[in-house]
């Protein structure tokens, strides 16, 4: 009897102790399988001088990294990316939250609405960009028509050429496509908020604002934090929409870091330099993300 209990006891201790490792093992395995080689390869290559015409793999030291500091186009690309991220992310978060609030309570036909609202995110970003490009067209697109109607006289808006309109165009397209992402995530999170707490606050006569600040937001904070993190990182890599709308133009005005790496990596085949740029990006992002996470953890 004692042996039996101690055996099962030991077994459950074993699986419990190793449970947490067993749970992470498969995922980590796959991540390592796919992730390690490209990282190592890029790292090694960044110290070489592989270009379109040169397959020479000799060690070149910090050649590429030194070049990073002289490359103004790179830093502008980072600035453009930061600008887009800084504007689009809060907009998507706020709109997503408002939408989630709107659809949180029961209402007939809600299922249809929610499914429909997810459509923009499902569309391929390439197609979304191409469609908005056509919609923004001065002659063939409805946007000009609508604006002209509202303004009372025909307008000639060059959304993809006018320096004052290119960023709004990109932001409109981007926020349009990804607000439903925030919407869905927040809807799921809001629906998990402890109903009994809400009811208690209601009975106490608390205002909506207080309830929001003191119950709802703290409850969904983990999800908001991660949604912001994920969306932020994805915004940093935004490519298809900008490529379809402006190709980084006019000039390099809307060239983000992903467009720039595309040009130097894919078109000009400066493999080594591109790898160096990639590591710079990863370094910068790691710093930012770590800082942001620490702050969120502390405030929580």
């Amino acid at each position, binding site marked *: 009897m004692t042996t039996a209990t101690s055996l099962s006891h030991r077994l459950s201790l074993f699986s419990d102790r190793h449970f947490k490792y067993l749970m992470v093992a498969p995922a980590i395995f796959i991540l390592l399988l796919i992730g390690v080689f490209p990282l190592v390869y890029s790292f090694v290559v960044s110290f070489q001088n592989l270009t379109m015409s040169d397959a020479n793999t000799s060690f070149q030291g910090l050649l590429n990294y030194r070049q990073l500091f002289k490359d103004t186009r790179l830093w502008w690309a980072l600035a453009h990316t930061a600008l887009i991220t800084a504007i689009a992310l809060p907009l998507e978060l706020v709109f997503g939250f408002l939408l989630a609030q709107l659809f949180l309570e029961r209402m007939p036909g809600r299922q249809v609405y929610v499914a429909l609202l997810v459509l923009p995110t499902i569309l391929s970003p390439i197609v979304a960009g191409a469609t908005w490009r056509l919609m923004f*067209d001065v002659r063939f697109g409805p946007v000009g028509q609508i604006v002209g109607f509202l303004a009372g006289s025909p307008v000639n808006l060059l959304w993809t*050429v006018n320096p004052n309109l290119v960023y709004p165009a990109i932001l409109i397209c981007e926020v349009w496509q990804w607000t439903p992402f925030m919407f869905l995530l927040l809807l799921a999170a809001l629906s998990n908020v402890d109903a009994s707490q809400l009811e208690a606050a209601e009975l106490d006569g608390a205002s909506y604002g207080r309830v929001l600040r003191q119950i709802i937001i703290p409850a969904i904070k983990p999800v908001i934090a991660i949604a912001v993190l994920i969306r932020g990182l994805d915004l940093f890599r935004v490519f298809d929409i900008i490529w379809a709308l402006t190709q980084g133009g006019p000039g390099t005005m809307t060239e983000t870091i992903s467009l720039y790496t595309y040009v130097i990596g894919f*078109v*000009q085949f400066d493999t080594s330099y591109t790898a160096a740029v990639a590591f710079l990006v990863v370094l910068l992002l790691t710093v930012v993300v770590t800082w942001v996470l620490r702050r969120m953890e502390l405030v929580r």
Partner: protein
Amino acid sequence: MVRRRKVLSAGSLALFAPSLTLAQSRNAAETAVAAAKKFSGTEISIVWEAGLQSLDPLKYSGPKWEKLTGIKVKVVEVPTDQMFTKIMQDFRSNAGAYDALNVIPSWMPDLVKAGALEPLDALVDRHGYREELNDIAPAYRDNQMKVDNRIYGFPDDGDVMLLYYRKDIFEDPKMKEGFKAKYGYELAPPKDWKQFSEIGSFITEKMAPKTYGAGFFRAAPYPQYMYQERFRMEGGQFFNADTMKATVNSDVGVRVLRQMLSDNKFMPPGVEQWNFVDNLANFLQGTTAMTISWPPYGRWAAGYGTNEEAMKWVPKTQVSGKVGYALNPLGRPELGVGFALSVASTSKKKEAAYLFIQWLNSKQTSLERVQLPYTLRDPFRTSHYASAEYRKLWPDAGAYLDTIKASGERGLLDLSLLQQDKYDEAMSKALSSLWAGTDPKTVADSLAAAFDAITEKVGVARQKDAYVAWARKPGAYPGK
């Protein structure tokens, strides 16, 4: 060589003489087929531009080749933007997955230098293709075939810019009268850019908003070809051949940019955003009276082939029968892009791939291919221009071919240096800032600076050699 063989065979192998004479009178297409039969049952892959372009190998040439030789053709469709990348990556990784390739001639120096293309001279001689190669129009034959005097590709597309104009408007008596009264010369396709602006403004004045004087594609990446042409024709030089410093910001350079920008004024609103298809749609609908573009516009404007299923995406032409063809203002149009057929150096089936491209490019097959209703391959052989068959395709086809031929003969070469795509990109970006309203002088200066930075990175001495070699060619600068 041939005569000796004939004597030998006649003397010693009388039995085989008939079949040998037959072999000598075979054209390159038939030779290729005959030689390829021994590879029957295998499969070769060819990289082709995705979209309309690849309908040729998918629906016509691929199946036909398979029927003739038993070799299956796998068409690897790749979007234009990614073609160079996929070819290079396949080469660099030694995957050897591609056998035959479509390459844009301006990539050839870079691809050859990297070692990605197979030199074809030996194969050309082995299969007796030199003669038919000579039939390719000089503009393409002499400039899009060889690197360092070795054959690396067969020019397969007669890309050249043409001026398309509305004959009916130009021949309208009221328009002619009014124009002559205002400007003092006959209304006719513009001989230079000043006339172009005057004619364009006049037509817009009289006929907008139904029709405007002209329209161009202004959105990247094609406008840079028009810039290259106009810049050189107005007297500009890309570089100082001694110092290798860019001279695109000379007075001529700034002036050309300024004039290109001011031309937009008489074009339809929104022209700054137009891409190839937008420009096409507007011309076919009759919105623009003049435009400059590649040969396909001419076919589609005439309505040739647009009833085909594959061509359903082209808006119905409202200007069929009303389109005239002319040389660009100043008379030397940019050749602009083009395509050549090559063999990948890492292919494991080089000979089979080579025979396929010889067959595709041969006089016989290429004539069939350029007449396909859905083709984007334009006539590129002297025999094409003279073809009675082609001339019957639509009423103005003869004039069309004549204009293409003349344009090809006078064509200007695309700038082609080491890492040309970097220079192309710089020009593209410069033009997009121009349309956006940046001051032309600033644009020109930035372009020159960009050029210089690229030249420095490539290596001034190396690039100078490449530039001098290119500039020496008859099609590089006018007046040569």
